[in-house]
């Protein structure tokens, strides 16, 4: 089964490292303006990759949307 999930970035936690964009360039986009990562509208990932990027964010700013 292809279990797709959506992700969100907590803007207060994001420190703009860009690890997320590096791992999943289709899903995350770092704004040049305020250096906060945003999830591309409607982007989804399968659960394993989503968990990897959640884990990959050094400041725990990314979570899976309930």
């Amino acid at each position, binding site marked *: 089964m292809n279990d797709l999930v959506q992700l969100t970035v907590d803007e207060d936690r994001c*420190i*703009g*490292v*860009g690890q997320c*964009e590096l791992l999943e360039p289709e899903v995350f986009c770092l704004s040049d303006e*305020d250096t906060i990562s945003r999830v591309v509208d409607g982007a989804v990932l399968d659960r394993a990759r989503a968990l990897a990027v959640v884990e990959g964010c*050094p*400041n725990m700013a990314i979570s899976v949307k309930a």
Partner: protein
Amino acid sequence: MDRRASPADIATSSVYLDGIPHEGFTAIRETEGLVWHPYGPIGDGNGERNGFWAVARHADVREVSRNPEVFSSAVGHTNLWDLEADALEARRSLIDSDAPDHTRLRRVVSRAFTPRNTRNWEGMAREIAAELVDAFVAGGGGDWVAQVAAPLPIRVILAILGVPLEDADYLVELTNHLVEGTGDGPSLPDDAYGNTTPTRLLPFNSPASHALFEYAERMRQLRLADPGADLVSGLLEAEADGERLSANEYRNFFQLLVFAGNETTRTAMVHGALAFAEHPEQWAELCHDPSLITRAVDEVIRWATPVLHMRRTASCDTELAGTSIAAGDKVVMWYAAANRDPTVFEDPFRFDVTRVENPHFAFGGGGPHFCLGAFLARMEIQVLLEEMVARNVVLQPRSAPVHLASNFVHGVASLDLGVAS
């Protein structure tokens, strides 16, 4: 209160003249809970009182890194020794602040260091790497530190900052003095470089910091008058939440960048070169399969662990690994130990460029202070290795490295390497 004493000395700087005391770290990692390690002069009892909790297991380093509310960077600071309040304030920069100050500062500076931006500098870094490698090979080898590992990162960071190339040697000299400031050895006289500030107010207690500040200020004047596409101009223009960097924030950050972007990456390149010279089969493997490059880069960084530790200070009473920690206690994360934790790394004392699972903490254990330059450092090490692979350069050990007496940077003063023909 009874505290479990450390089974090994990992704090005396001269211990590091023989390299990282891995046996000591292993003993600490294997001791249940946390151990208390004395720091400073022991005889008068202060060493015991000024000591710290030694955090050596990977999971515990992670826990400390990711709980900045409890394990603060701003209370006390991030080096082992303590500072008086005025000194702490004068030196305050990104690395020793907490949210919300840290978040604001970090956002001002982070835009330059995202993976996307870092790629813009790759061509420049590659040219510098190629030039240095060619010269090293043409000379039949020599001191890898002086000829390749030191000049490469400093030239890259100076190019990014927009500093003229002819000042590179001067800035290398200054940062070398800063590292000395972390050791026990003699350093500069207090009035070196025309310094008049009490050294306790200066980063690394070093008059070289005064010289760096002066240099930073000169750059500031230059770029305010004539802005360019360089990072200094960017920093002076950058705003976060409507605020600009203050003059003090700017100069502290300039000094942090020149230091952090230089000594660390150099150290990774030194230990990497030595590891490949001593493990020629690993070099052959990388040359045979260049797609291993990103794994090789991270293995070099794990192997080197250029920054041996960072300190936090407990902001409240807490507990870690079943040990009670009191508010105000120093808590020191030993990345050097976490990066050899056998519960995380298979065969941790083997240098292995094919390592797949490599969640090393050389850039910190996560959390808000995660190394700002992680992508830049990786990119520099990658272009260096790629240029060496492209030229089929095979390094050979000639003599043992000369280690620095520093418990903070895994530094090497010189490393004589040959080149196989």
